[in-house]
């Protein structure tokens, strides 16, 4: 199981800030994850926006980036500063 985090407005869109989830076979990188999850939740593309960055195990990654079923993966919309 992977642990997913949704920050900022994505938390509202997903209806939760975090969940654990079985990543389906074939979803092996961040590009596939974005597309699959956005379609699965019928989000209309908000998870595939390039301004949404991904962090894997607390590191913001360059994409596409390989993922595994034990990762902590966070979806980070543009940061607004404090």
């Amino acid at each position, binding site marked *: 199981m992977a642990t997913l985090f949704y920050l*900022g407005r994505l938390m509202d869109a997903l209806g939760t800030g975090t969940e654990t989830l079985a990543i389906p076979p074939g979803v092996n990188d961040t590009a596939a994850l974005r597309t699959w999850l956005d379609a699965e939740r019928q989000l209309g593309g908000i998870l595939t926006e390039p301004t949404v960055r991904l962090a894997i195990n607390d590191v913001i990654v360059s994409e596409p980036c390989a993922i595994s079923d034990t990762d902590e993966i966070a979806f980070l919309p543009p940061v607004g*500063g404090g």
Partner: protein
Amino acid sequence: MVSLLDHAFDATDALRAFEKRAAGAGAIVSFTGLVRDTGKFGEVMTLHLQAYSPLTERGIAAAVAEAEARWPLTATSVIHRIGDMAPAEPIVFVATASAHRRAAFEAADFLMDYLKTEAVFWKKETTASGDHWIEPRNEDYSDRDRWSKTGS
């Protein structure tokens, strides 16, 4: 020293504590940012700030390290609120100490530009019309750009 606090704090107490650490400095600059009562969507009742640890802390610590590399600082302090806060409450406190005032001013200004533009926070304003997530302002980016242009 970097702290994220989920409760109210007193900027004056923060300065007093900083002064003790900064003993021997010639110049101390402090910046206090207060929650504004008006936002893009009208009167703000509550401001909510979300961090993502440890990315948020790591980013601020890197900005502090960059400030300490650029300017001869003897002490720095960053305190940032997270969670729910009311207008007029302190949201951020930055203090810098140096032998000379120019370094202290520039480093505090630099850290505030980082905190207002690149820091890993998501911000939501609650107004009479509901909740609104706030996107970055262009003005914040141009402030931040000043530092890459001037060199070190």
